[in-house]
């Protein structure tokens, strides 16, 4: 059995002198394909979950336990962001690394605004055509179209976020604080994680939240979800290494497995209300509601258990990681921002096709889902082809984008 917590590139920890920074970065050799694989998987699952009523959504992990693809996505984003920008911070310093992070934040923001435009288009189209007296009340959701002056500005400052568009604003806020997180980690990684846990606890205790427009709060509370992001960063910067003994013990494995089975049976009672009698009332009272907004401890623990078992079952050099079959997933994971946005768009478009054009049979649902996944994979392939050839050209000095007004 391989160790559970190899550093990202499998290199041994560098020997550090007393004055060295608190974090250690493994040497870059090969990409950690497991991260790409699971981020790709998370992106596929987010897409499937966003297509309402989908039969394939039965395959997604949220139906088998407390946590879902969002946890995977945020954790891996924290891990890879810390890995990439942590290295930049050690090599080029705080200012340069922060500047690069801000550039990334800007990209995510633009992506978010782009998706909002598409959402506006869809809602406006439906609003103009749908007039079913049964749903007079539900049509109220489109009332925001009556005040574009307010809603569009609120959308630009991330306070108005339609359904399914909550992940990117969360990601933006988390990335905004990444320079601070990395700077603290450079000083004392464990203390940073502890501070993050304290913020999480304080958020729960005092019920802190970010307000949203027209009312309510952010669907994903950044002050709770930061725990997962910081935990990802902590793992990337040597934490996973230090946990390896705990993680590889049999006891941990059994606890994790037992918890996953428990969560599975609890979720079973949600889908089959007939089984509800098996759930003791006291347990329900203690456990519910399991807050997604504030990243309930039960969800966090479920993600940890899932991650621990996955890392244990899939070693870093698991042969299928290089196979052609998993290639589409890995490619999607490697271009996560683009593919995430495409996934949200495809979910809108797919729902649109199902409701407005083709009729809503299970077969059409399946075909739309499949088409979406194929488009996502194809797009990921095109992007990586483009990047490869663009990198080659850049080395030769061909097609310098700066001469055409700057690259993006």
């Amino acid at each position: 059995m391989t160790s559970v917590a190899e550093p990202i590139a499998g290199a041994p920890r560098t020997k550090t002198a007393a004055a060295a920074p608190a974090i250690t970065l493994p040497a870059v050799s090969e990409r950690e394909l497991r991260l790409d694989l699971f981020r790709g998987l998370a992106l596929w699952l987010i897409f499937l979950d966003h297509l309402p009523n989908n039969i394939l959504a039965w395959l997604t992990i949220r139906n088998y336990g407390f946590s879902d693809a969002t946890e995977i996505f945020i954790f891996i984003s924290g891990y890879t962001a810390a890995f990439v920008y942590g290295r930049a911070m050690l090599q080029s310093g705080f200012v340069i690394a922060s500047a690069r992070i801000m550039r990334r934040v800007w990209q995510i923001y633009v992506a978010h605004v782009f998706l909002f435009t598409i959402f506006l288009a869809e809602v406006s189209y439906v609003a103009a055509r749908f007039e079913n007296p049964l749903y007079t009340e539900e049509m109220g959701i489109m009332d925001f179209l009556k005040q574009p002056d307010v809603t569009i500005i609120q959308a630009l400052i991330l306070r108005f976020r339609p359904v399914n568009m909550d992940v990117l604003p969360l990601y933006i806020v988390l990335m905004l604080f990444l320079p601070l997180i990395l700077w603290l980690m450079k000083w004392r990684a464990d203390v940073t994680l502890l501070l993050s846990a304290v913020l999480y606890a304080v958020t729960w205790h005092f019920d802190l939240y970010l307000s949203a427009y027209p009312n309510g709060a952010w669907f994903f509370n950044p002050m709770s979800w930061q725990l997962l992001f910081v935990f990802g960063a902590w793992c990337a910067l040597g934490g996973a290494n230090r946990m390896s003994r705990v993680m590889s013990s049999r006891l941990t494995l059994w606890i994790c497995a037992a918890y996953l089975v428990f969560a599975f049976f609890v979720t079973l009672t949600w889908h089959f209300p007939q089984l509800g009698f098996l759930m003791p009332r006291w347990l329900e009272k203690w456990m519910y509601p399991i807050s997604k907004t504030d990243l309930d401890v039960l969800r966090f623990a479920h993600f940890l258990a899932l991650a621990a078992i996955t890392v244990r079952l899939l070693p870093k050099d698991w042969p299928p990681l290089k196979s052609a079959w998993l290639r589409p997933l890995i490619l999607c994971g490697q271009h996560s921002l683009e593919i995430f946005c495409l996934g949200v768009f495809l979910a809108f478009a797919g729902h649109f096709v199902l409701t407005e054009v083709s009729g809503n049979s299970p077969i059409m649902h399946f075909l739309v889902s499949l088409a979406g996944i194929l488009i996502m994979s194809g797009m990921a392939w095109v992007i990586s082809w483009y990047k490869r050839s663009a990198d080659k050209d850049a080395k030769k000095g061909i097609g310098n984008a700066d001469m055409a007004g700057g690259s993006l």
Partner: protein
Amino acid sequence: MKAAILGLILLGGLLAAAPLARAEEAPPACEVPAYLLNSDSTLGRVAAAVKSGKPLNVLVVGSRSSTIVSQDGSAYPAKLLAMLKEKLAQLNINLSVEIQIGKTAEESAATFVKLVETKNPTLVIWQTGTVDAIRGVDPDDFRSAVDEGITALQKAGVDVVLVNLQYSPRTETMTSVPPYLDTMRVVAQQHDIPLFDRFAIMRHWNDSGDFDLFSSTHGAELAKRVHACIGRALSKFVIDAAHLDHAQQN
């Protein structure tokens, strides 16, 4: 251990399959599988009132989805009254409807004390959640609002039935409904009151082909038929939860 788990899974499968099998035999006219109309909670005050021969005053409090624009007589509260009168012919049943357009659960709950004073109901059927979902009210705030509303009603000596949101496939990508459904289920459990799962029932009708809820019809025909079916299912639900069918036999 393994055998026990296997047994549980098989049991689950059987339980899941049973209502499906029943639904297939029944005519496709908006039958509701039994498990969607089962409730562990009972309506004790309704049962007591009926037993002692008092009139049964039902008050429906709801937002716009408890009515059909300019067709009040065809909306589910009217159908509920008709069905109740039909099934419990010898009882004196009154029903009034309080439509609170655009009010959240919190705004609605604030009106309860006065409402109960003026209408003096035995049973309040509270339909809520839609306005909160549309406005994106924080689920925690929604939870305490529903909690307060139920507490106020129970303190006033009234039985409560909660009715949750409509299943609305066309707006599914625009509203986040699940947190509100979950919250209502939890609060109903905590107060031990019956929850009429309008959402699951309507989805069942849509999936089984009874109604095409995706339809963008402009007429009120579909709305009337759906409301008639909801009224019928709700009457069954209330009668079961108050054990009125047994009371009749005694």
